[in-house]
């Protein structure tokens, strides 16, 4: 998994993460309240312009989140063309496209740490019921960290089994992978201890590693 963040110091990069997420949410709500083709098409143009010009991102950064769902956008359009009408289909597709590109702009210009800090802030009212927001942030960050790692290890187990002549590789990787992951989890726990995860003052927020 590639990091989606593209370092930079454009205006868009410098807008606070909370504001960017709020604007993204507002855009989402606004797009679903309107059924106007010009408005929705204008939104696509706007977010692309923000991404390319204001945030100075390359096309690839904008398309990274669109490409995997292109097929579904096509299906959606086809569905509407067959069942309703092409205009409704275009609105539905452009609406999603605008949101996907906007989300790409936000993730490409905002560090995970900053997004996580927003989640922590939003979760801070939960402190009264004993939830530690910093813990929620840590869990998110660790999930992002360990997903590609576990995927790598799974690939390695698969290779090892293939090398030993396993023809069908299926559920067979689960047990060795699980053993590896559990063993690592024990060390990760120790590492969190050694790096002071429990020393964190209850009100800490993730530091901005940003410059």
């Amino acid at each position, binding site marked *: *998994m*590639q*990091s989606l*963040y593209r*370092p930079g110091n454009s205006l868009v990069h410098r807008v606070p993460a909370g504001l960017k997420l709020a604007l993204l949410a507002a855009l989402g709500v606004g797009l679903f309240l309107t059924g106007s083709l010009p408005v929705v098409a204008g939104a696509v143009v706007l977010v692309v312009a923000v991404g390319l010009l204001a945030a100075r991102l390359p096309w690839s950064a904008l398309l990274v989140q669109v490409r995997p769902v292109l097929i579904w956008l096509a299906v959606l359009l086809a569905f509407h063309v067959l069942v309703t009408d092409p205009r409704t289909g275009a609105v539905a597709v452009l609406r999603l496209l605008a949101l996907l590109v906007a989300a790409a702009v936000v993730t490409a210009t905002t*560090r*995970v*740490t900053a997004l996580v800090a927003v989640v922590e802030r939003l979760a801070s009212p939960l402190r009264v019921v004993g939830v530690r927001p910093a813990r929620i942030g*840590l869990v998110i*960050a*660790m999930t*992002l*960290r360990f997903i*590609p*790692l576990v995927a*790598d290890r799974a690939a390695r187990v698969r290779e090892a089994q293939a090398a030993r002549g396993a023809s069908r590789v299926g559920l067979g990787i689960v047990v060795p992978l699980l053993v590896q992951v559990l063993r*690592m989890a024990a*060390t*990760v726990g*120790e*590492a*969190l*201890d*050694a*790096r*002071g*995860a429990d*020393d*964190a*003052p209850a009100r*800490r927020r*993730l*530091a*901005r*590693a940003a*410059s």
Partner: protein
Amino acid sequence: MRWGRRPAALEEAPSVERTGIELRDVVHSYGDRTVLTGVSLTLTERRVGVIGANGSGKSTFARLLNGLVLPTEGTVLVDGLDTATRAREVRRRVGFVFQDPDAQIVHPTVAEDLAFGPTNQGVPADEIERRVADVLDRYGLAGHRDHPAHLLSGGQKQLLAIAGVLVMRPERIVFDEPTTLLDLANARRVARVIEELPQDVVVVSHHLELLDGFDRVLVFEDGRVAADGPPAETVPWYTARMG
């Protein structure tokens, strides 16, 4: 990449009473399995090595030094602080680097991971920023600041793990087989980095040449210290014994 430069900023270690790490009659058992039996010694040297066969108790010993593992019997004192009751202060003084850096890196990108330890310590954000920039530069990771940690090479990951401990400014660092998973070139780099640390270090290793310039080497055997002295004496004794 630069490996040879002597760290300047990290030499301003805080001046506190440093009496060393003392183990008094330490016994450690996992369940009813005793893996360390009556270890008593005091570590005051700058460079201490730990060698011994697999399962001889080296990792357990290493973890006792910063309170990751607490003695079943006996006491471990770090500068007079009991690891059983002063865990937090002890961990501030004694950093720990694990064999597998993948298990030690907990944030998705390099700079974020480096900020983790000092953030936990409550270090102010601008100071964290300074320290992070400093280690990134020193360990040739400056160009990887926002890279996903999992795309680094094995050697870079171990340097990141070490850097993640250095930014916490411990006075001592314990390494548990830091070069075991690395190829020869990267093992040498990491060895150089360790050699040049201003901190006191304790290094568990199967790479005996890494311990050449060390002040003292402990040889573990079945949960006991079977030999203890300068590497010129203990290392040949150990290799002869291993046949």
